[in-house]
């Protein structure tokens, strides 16, 4: 029979110019995905989010986290610094650490008890020099040239940023400040200015869609005022608001900034918007009892996408990091860590917790984001490798914008993606 083209592989070409039409195979092809892991999550100078410092306050405290598909241990060392090491024994590959959180003086792989320091160095292993018998002869042991230094846990380069912890397998990666870029840093520092954080909790959801769809979703100022009734109805996010779309120089990171208005009707942005509910009011206003915080300096919403692994959310009084953990081309885990500040009053904490009802897997304005991402992947899958999305709102180019009626941030991300993926 004549050759049958495999689903994945070389015959995939991105023929069009620019980045306003994304081919479906960019979301479904396993080989594309493996290259994404190599280049975005494990290499090419990219940093991944792994934790908040407050999750491991004391020496020896550790938590398991993820860099791409690789399990890593984030641990605070005796000197208070933070190490990130891969959770894979150097002897025979065992992912040995199984407790999601804990405190350790060292790491011991149970299989043969190879023992590692908190920085991943191999401290020792049983019978390295064999077992001495009565007659003095020695049985077994590791070869004479065995070098402990060559057999530690894979160690990642680590940087913290006012309470955030980032890591990378690429030890040639630039410093975080350079990685984030001058346009994004101020918005990051607006939230993370060195204040101590408090941990409110973690929520997790498994979303059966390609990981990039979540980045798109938070680089898409077009949808919130349309998909999310609460946003348009209560004026949390809608096209008649003063807003700005910021990008780093590569187009990979972005910030969506906006200032809430009073909501209600406004011909230009609610007319014909089926999700708008003219007469909707809350039975219990406490769900949206917004109180302005001084550090906001205006904006009520800032959504920061730090490519490829994390989204940082300020939605009025609700704060969280959202960690993207990809697993295959058509699924990722999305881990929400909600936090506040050490100087929050009890009321403010209760307020943040009440507003948390809007977010996460059950959130009034986030549950449906997970749903549409699932349905997008459904659509890509059913069509097969050809077919493409159309991201041409506000043109086909890439650049910052001072409004929401644009898909420029998405185009920015795929412009960068094409470059790095060499596609």
């Amino acid at each position, binding site marked *: 029979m004549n050759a049958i083209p495999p689903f994945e592989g070389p015959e995939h070409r991105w023929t069009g110019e620019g980045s306003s039409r994304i081919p479906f195979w960019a979301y479904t092809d396993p080989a594309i995905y493996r290259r994404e892991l190599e280049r975005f999550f494990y290499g090419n100078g990219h940093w991944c989010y792994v934790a908040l410092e407050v999750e491991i306050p004391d020496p020896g405290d550790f938590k398991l986290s993820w860099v791409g598909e690789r399990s890593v241990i984030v641990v605070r060392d005796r000197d208070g610094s933070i190490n990130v090491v891969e959770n894979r024994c150097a002897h025979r590959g065992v992912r040995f650490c199984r407790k999601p959180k804990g405190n350790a003086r060292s790491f011991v792989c149970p299989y043969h008890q190879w023992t590692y320091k908190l920085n991943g160095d191999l401290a020792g292993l049983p019978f390295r020099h064999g077992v001495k018998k009565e007659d003095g002869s020695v049985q077994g042991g590791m070869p004479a040239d065995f070098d402990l230094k060559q057999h530690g846990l894979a160690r990642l380069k680590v940087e913290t940023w006012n309470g955030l912890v980032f890591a990378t397998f690429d030890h040639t990666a630039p410093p975080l400040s350079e990685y984030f870029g001058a346009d994004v840093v101020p918005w990051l520092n607006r939230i993370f200015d060195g204040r101590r954080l408090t941990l409110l909790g*973690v929520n997790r959801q498994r979303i059966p869609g390609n990981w990039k769809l979540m980045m798109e979703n938070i680089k898409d100022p077009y949808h919130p005022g349309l998909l999310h*009734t609460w946003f348009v109805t209560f004026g949390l996010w809608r096209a008649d608001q003063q807003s700005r779309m910021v990008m780093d120089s590569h187009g990979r990171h972005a910030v969506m900034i906006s200032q809430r208005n009073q909501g209600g009707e406004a011909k230009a942005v609610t007319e014909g918007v089926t999700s708008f509910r003219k007469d909707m009011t809350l039975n*219990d206003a406490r769900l949206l009892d917004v109180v302005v915080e001084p550090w906001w300096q205006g904006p009520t919403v800032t959504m920061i996408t730090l490519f490829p692994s994390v989204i940082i959310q300020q939605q009025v009084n609700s704060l969280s990091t959202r960690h993207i953990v990809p697993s295959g081309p058509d699924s990722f885990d999305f881990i929400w860590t909600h936090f506040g500040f050490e100087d929050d009053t009890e009321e403010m904490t209760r307020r943040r917790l*009440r507003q948390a009802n809007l977010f996460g897997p059950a959130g009034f304005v986030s549950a449906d984001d997970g749903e549409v991402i699932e349905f997008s992947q459904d659509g890509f899958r059913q069509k097969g490798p050809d077919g493409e999305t159309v991201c041409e709102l506000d043109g086909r180019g890439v650049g910052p914008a001072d409004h929401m009626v644009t898909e420029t941030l998405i185009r920015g991300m795929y412009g960068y993606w094409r470059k790095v993926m060499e596609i």
Partner: protein
Amino acid sequence: MAVRTGAIALSILESQHRMDQLNAAYGEALDAADYDAWIGMFTEDCHYRVVSRENYDQGLPLSIMALEGHGMLRDRVYGITNTLFHSPYYQRHVIGTARILSDDGRTLHATANYAVFRTKPGSVSEVYNVGRYIDRLLHTREGLKLQERICVFDSEMVLNSLIYPV
């Protein structure tokens, strides 16, 4: 033939019956998407929370759903029925026998294990959310009412979204 071995106060059997019936009705109401009936099982000043076991065990306050009073319950129902876009699904509750931890005739504390199965119409059923109800109830003229129900779930990785109460 069975022999009687130490009496149990009838009130205990009665409270047990009331509690198990409430749980059965609770599951049936949610599985039938009868949200008015669902709200009716709570007191006006109720607390309803759905929280992961990891947060609950660590004493972290975050829930995935945390509602206070009938008003918020109604707001949630409005979200389910009017504002939250989602793929519809069936729920099916199977709830174990309740354990009554205390009952002073006014307030009753109880727990029960539950399993909720999710089925998208026309598709197969999957284990969706399993956990434990931790309840505080009041004896009222209309019978037992939930003053607080905390759904502490084991299924920490939510299968995409959780739209309806469990």
